[in-house]
């Protein structure tokens, strides 16, 4: 029994239920904040990977996406994703929750307030859009990027989120993948990873390769930033995955452990590939391997055992380490390997559920656990549908934006550096002389007479 602050003990059942609900709510609040941390984490991760002349722009694309996507999500995105289905399990009603209307009243029967659930989901959209920026680094107009961020959230993210995340309950009809198909995707292997990866590929193909791609050196300018970013992403990912349990309970705990393990084995597997293929295990490989493992465990964290999670990490770490070389073979400029890590990792994680799902953890057994190929088939359909829709819709959207307001930066500006041209800033002022003469205020020539 837990006494209230006035010293009067409350009945056990009511206080137990109240403390469970407040525990769920507290965890969801914290988890949402953790997911937000993944945005600056991604900004560092990507920022360190580009050349020093474009690090600020890369970070701006992620921060800008955060700002625009969240606003659009509240206005209409959440409603499309989680509103009552308009037919076929394809789209939710965009007016039902527009502007978060009707969501503010406290519900004593709910485990958590609907607003924090909606915010939590919106932050998933933020990360998904931010990931796409990595595919088109160094060559993208900032204003158009913000427009793209808003439109893509409405046209691509929200529908796919509806398909896989919106479960039917009572009168409410949700999306087709979650309900009619029965595909398993705990935290977004489809809606986030395959979605962003396919979109990144489409955008990279439509906008074209960077000036000097394949000839000029385009290597990470600050690997320490990349590692800091990977660390922050990992930390935030616990909110992303374990938060998707929507409860502070046993499932969340298992998901937490799986998320932890996949990052660990992802790192080891990527390093093993590097050591064997290139002769050196690198810090870049370590950071990449962690992320690859986390990408693949995102859909599978709620279906596999801890041993299964380790296998997921190994598969993703190894396969993605090999996949990132595809862009040189097929000559597409996926600048920061959104395809090699997020699309491929997302596919691995989503499909591997069909093999490794365990009824100790979830409702079905995968192929390797004696459950037959049924679930595997469902996973393949979900993965394929997401890939096709995302790629096609994004290609069209990017093409339209390029033709109307212009998406790609002038080649001369690209060579000069987007930090300077778009933001009039330099990230690193290492010049011994300071190198700048200030003039403040209107009409003044310089600070000193």
């Amino acid at each position, binding site marked *: 029994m837990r006494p209230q602050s006035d010293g009067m003990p409350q009945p056990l059942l009511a206080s137990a239920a109240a403390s469970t609900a407040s525990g769920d709510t507290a965890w969801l609040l914290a988890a949402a904040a953790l997911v937000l941390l993944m945005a600056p984490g991604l900004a560092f991760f990507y920022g360190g990977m580009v050349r020093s002349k474009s690090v600020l722009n890369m970070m701006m694309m992620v921060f800008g996406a955060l700002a625009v996507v969240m606003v659009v999500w509240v206005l209409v995105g959440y409603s499309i994703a989680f509103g009552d289905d308009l037919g076929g399990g394809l789209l939710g009603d965009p007016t039902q929750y527009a502007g978060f209307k009707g969501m503010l009243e406290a519900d004593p029967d709910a485990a958590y307030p609907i607003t924090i659930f909606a915010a939590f989901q919106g932050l998933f959209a933020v990360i998904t859009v931010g990931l796409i920026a990595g595919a088109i680094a160094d060559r993208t107009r900032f204003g158009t990027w913000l427009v793209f961020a808003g439109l893509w959230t409405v046209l691509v993210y929200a529908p796919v989120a509806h398909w896989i995340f919106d479960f039917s309950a009572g009168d409410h009809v949700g999306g087709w993948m979650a309900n009619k198909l029965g595909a398993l995707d705990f935290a977004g292997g489809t809606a986030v990873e395959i979605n962003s990866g396919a979109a990144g590929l489409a955008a990279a193909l439509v906008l074209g390769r960077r000036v000097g791609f394949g*000839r000029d050196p385009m290597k990470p300018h600050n690997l320490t930033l990349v590692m800091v970013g990977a660390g922050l992403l990992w930390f935030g990912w616990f909110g992303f995955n374990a938060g998707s349990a929507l409860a502070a309970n046993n499932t969340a705990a298992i998901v937490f452990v799986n998320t932890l393990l996949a990052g660990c084995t992802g790192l080891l597997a990527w390093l093993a590939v590097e050591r064997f293929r290139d002769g050196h295990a690198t810090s870049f490989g370590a950071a990449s391997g962690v992320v690859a493992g986390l990408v693949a465990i995102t859909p599978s964290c709620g279906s596999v055992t801890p041993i299964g999670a380790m296998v997921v990490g190994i598969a993703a770490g190894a396969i993605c380490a090999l996949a990132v070389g595809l862009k040189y073979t097929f000559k597409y400029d996926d600048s920061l390997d959104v395809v090699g890590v997020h699309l491929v990792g997302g596919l691995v994680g989503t499909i591997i559920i069909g093999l490794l799902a365990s009824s100790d953890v979830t409702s079905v057994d995968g192929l390797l656990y004696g459950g037959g190929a049924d679930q595997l088939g469902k996973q393949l359909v979900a993965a394929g549908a997401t890939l096709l829709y995302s790629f096609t819709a994004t290609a069209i959207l990017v093409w339209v934006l390029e033709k109307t307001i212009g998406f790609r930066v002038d080649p001369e500006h690209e*060579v000069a550096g987007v930090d300077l041209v778009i933001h009039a800033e330099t990230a690193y002022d290492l*010049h011994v*002389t300071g190198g*700048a003469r*200030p*003039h*403040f205020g209107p009409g003044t020539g310089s600070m000193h007479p």
Partner: protein
Amino acid sequence: MKLISAVVKPHKWEDVRQALEAVGVNGMTVSEVSGYGRQKGHTEVYRGAEYDIAMVPKVRIEIVADDHDVEQIVETITKAAQTGKVGDGKIWVTPVESVVRVRTGDTGPAAV
């Protein structure tokens, strides 16, 4: 012997390097310097405060060469580094009275 000094645009370094290798120049010193001239730099703005960044990043290439190689090297660099726009840089030649290769102690043309 002569010292050939060239100040060129950074993004031209790869072209210059390749062109020099093709004519047999196998050693040079490269440094990052700043140019200040007609190219005028750029302006940065931080919370409304404007800063004129007058210095423009350049690459300086220095080669100690035998007298009879000088003309070809200068021409090679000029052609490879040219963009036609302000800020392309300059190349100049100064006399070198003696040169020593530290590893072997060789002097004169054998050290170049």
